[in-house]
């Protein structure tokens, strides 16, 4: 094979550059942010401003090229279709909210201005990750994203929790990355390609893949389940959510989960849910079991938590379980993919909003907000209390919020796909989940405040982020037709 076959030297066409522009904006924006962040006194302000402008620019560029025809670069490695571009749009929007949310929080927690640059690097990695269908490219995108997040998690340098959380996340994340890499190497050795589309074709024609493929697939699936935080692989999640500064937790919980889950869905669709291969049935059962276990474990452990961030961390494990249910039904029902994307999108807003309200009441280097500390807080700060109520109801899936639309779509497509036992588990456990979400609301509005009531920290960024998330949650909950039709349009 000639070297020119691998790297055909050709210049990019205008159309291709148009699709790559958001990536350029984010990465160059990150470098500019790093430079202006070194300013002695106003580093934080300048860094925020520059990163805001560049993320906004990226948003604009993605929207501009949204409905252009499909483009694939590097021989099908990077695919830009309206679907992947919409996912990039969502991810970039989460990065924008994450940036706004960090403003104010950065000085309070003593975070460095590099925070804003790292958010942009992570967003660039996420865009690559949702656009690719090449296993190794996915690994590289995963690492671009994760390396930035590792630093973000341990960025509260004076805090012991943060150092510990960063270490735990790094070690387990490094382990998962290495497993993903070795797994994709084994898959390559067994079936002779890294491209998911090519691998799918091979699997469809060969109903008896070699054992090496199954081992490799097992490693890849474990690594991805770790990244999305499903039940037996969840050990890092509560600690990292608690130890990281709350703005980072919000960004992580929304954007990393979104990206990792979509990448996992992409892999599962091509490598696991192929009915002609008998040995893949085991993997389907494995995911079935993990979905049920995550729902039960996450919801029941969350009941016992008295600290808000930790409670939301366990509830996120339960939400991973619901999403895995959606993944299970993707093969049998055409709507399941759409409801999966919608669920992730809606959940991300609730997550961003809830953590931004929490960050408004945390003192410097505080580990977590205890539930006693928020007793009576909703009466004192009615607007923020109302926002928090909206986010929690959305996570619980109560009507009039977007969480209901997401959950309804997910469960109904799962019923259509014949996943009745799992749907029963999901419905029962989400009834359980209503208890601990409502408990917070009861504390907010109906309890007498104690002496250690949390003090409101005056910050404009988180307030704005909470406002935007609340508006989005209510808007998509009350008038969901537009977004559902939009997602239907781009998936067809």
């Amino acid at each position: 094979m000639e070297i020119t076959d691998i790297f055909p030297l050709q210049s990019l066409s205008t159309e291709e550059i148009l699709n790559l522009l958001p990536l350029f904006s984010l990465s160059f924006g990150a470098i500019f942010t790093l430079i202006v962040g070194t300013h002695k006194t106003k580093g934080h302000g300048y860094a925020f401003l520059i990163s805001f402008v560049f993320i906004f620019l990226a948003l604009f560029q993605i929207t501009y090229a949204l409905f252009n025809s499909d483009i694939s670069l590097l021989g099908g490695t990077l695919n830009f279709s309206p679907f992947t571009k919409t996912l990039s749009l969502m991810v970039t929007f989460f990065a924008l909210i994450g940036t706004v949310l960090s403003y104010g929080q950065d000085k309070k927690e003593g975070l460095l201005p590099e925070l804003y640059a790292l958010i942009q690097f992570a967003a660039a990695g996420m865009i690559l990750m949702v656009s690719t269908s090449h296993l190794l490219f996915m690994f590289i995108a995963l690492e671009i994203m994760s390396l930035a997040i590792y630093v973000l998690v341990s960025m509260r340098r004076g805090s012991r929790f943060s150092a510990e959380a960063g270490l735990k996340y790094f070690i387990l994340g490094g382990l998962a990355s290495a497993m993903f890499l070795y797994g994709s190497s084994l898959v390559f050795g067994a079936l002779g390609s890294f491209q998911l589309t090519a691998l799918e074709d091979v699997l469809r024609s060969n109903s008896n893949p070699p054992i090496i493929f199954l081992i490799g697939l097992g490693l890849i699936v474990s690594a991805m389940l770790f990244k999305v935080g499903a039940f037996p692989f969840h050990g890092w999640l509560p600690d990292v959510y608690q130890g990281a500064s709350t703005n980072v937790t919000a960004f992580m919980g929304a954007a990393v989960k979104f990206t990792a889950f979509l990448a996992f869905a992409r892999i599962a669709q091509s490598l696991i849910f192929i009915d002609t291969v008998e040995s893949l049935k085991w993997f389907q059962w494995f995911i079935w079991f993990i979905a049920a276990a995550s729902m039960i474990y996450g919801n029941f452990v969350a009941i016992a938590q008295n600290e808000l961030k930790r409670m939301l961390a366990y509830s996120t494990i339960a939400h991973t379980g619901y999403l895995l249910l959606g993944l299970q039904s993707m093969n049998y029902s055409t709507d399941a993919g759409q409801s999966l994307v919608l669920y992730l999108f809606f959940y991300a807003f609730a997550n961003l909003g809830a953590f931004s309200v929490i960050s408004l009441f945390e003192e410097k280097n505080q580990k977590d907000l205890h539930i006693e500390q928020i007793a009576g807080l909703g009466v004192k700060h009615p607007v923020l209390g109302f926002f928090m109520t909206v986010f929690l109801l959305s996570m619980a899936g109560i009507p009039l919020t977007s969480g209901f639309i997401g959950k309804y779509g997910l469960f109904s497509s799962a019923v259509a796909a014949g996943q009745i036992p799992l749907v029963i588990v999901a419905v029962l456990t989400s009834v359980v989940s209503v208890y601990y979400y409502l408990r917070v609301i009861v504390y907010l509005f109906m309890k007498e405040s104690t002496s250690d009531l949390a003090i409101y920290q005056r910050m404009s960024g988180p307030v704005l982020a909470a406002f935007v998330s609340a508006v989005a949650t209510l808007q998509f909950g009350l008038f969901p037709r537009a977004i559902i039709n939009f997602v239907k349009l781009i998936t067809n």
Partner: protein
Amino acid sequence: MNNEMLIQLLAAFLFVMGMLIVSLRRDTIMILMGIELMLNAANLSMVAFSKASHMIEGQVQVFFIITIAAAESAIGLSILVNLYRNFGSVKTQSATTLKG
């Protein structure tokens, strides 16, 4: 048993060793080395596979992975320095403030 099989066995052995180091050792520097070992085992197996199947794709990817491994160890070491400043030790059992 041919050479390709032997190289794959070696890669698998190195990978398992790295995994055991990460899960059993309590010293953070050793854990970092274990992660590096796992990544390099994957590199070795990828090179061997692409040599066996006459596809250069895997070998090219190894360069990217080496770069990423370097970035990862840089970040790992800086997290380690952060840990040392906060806890005065780089052993994992010293950092146990988060529980529940």
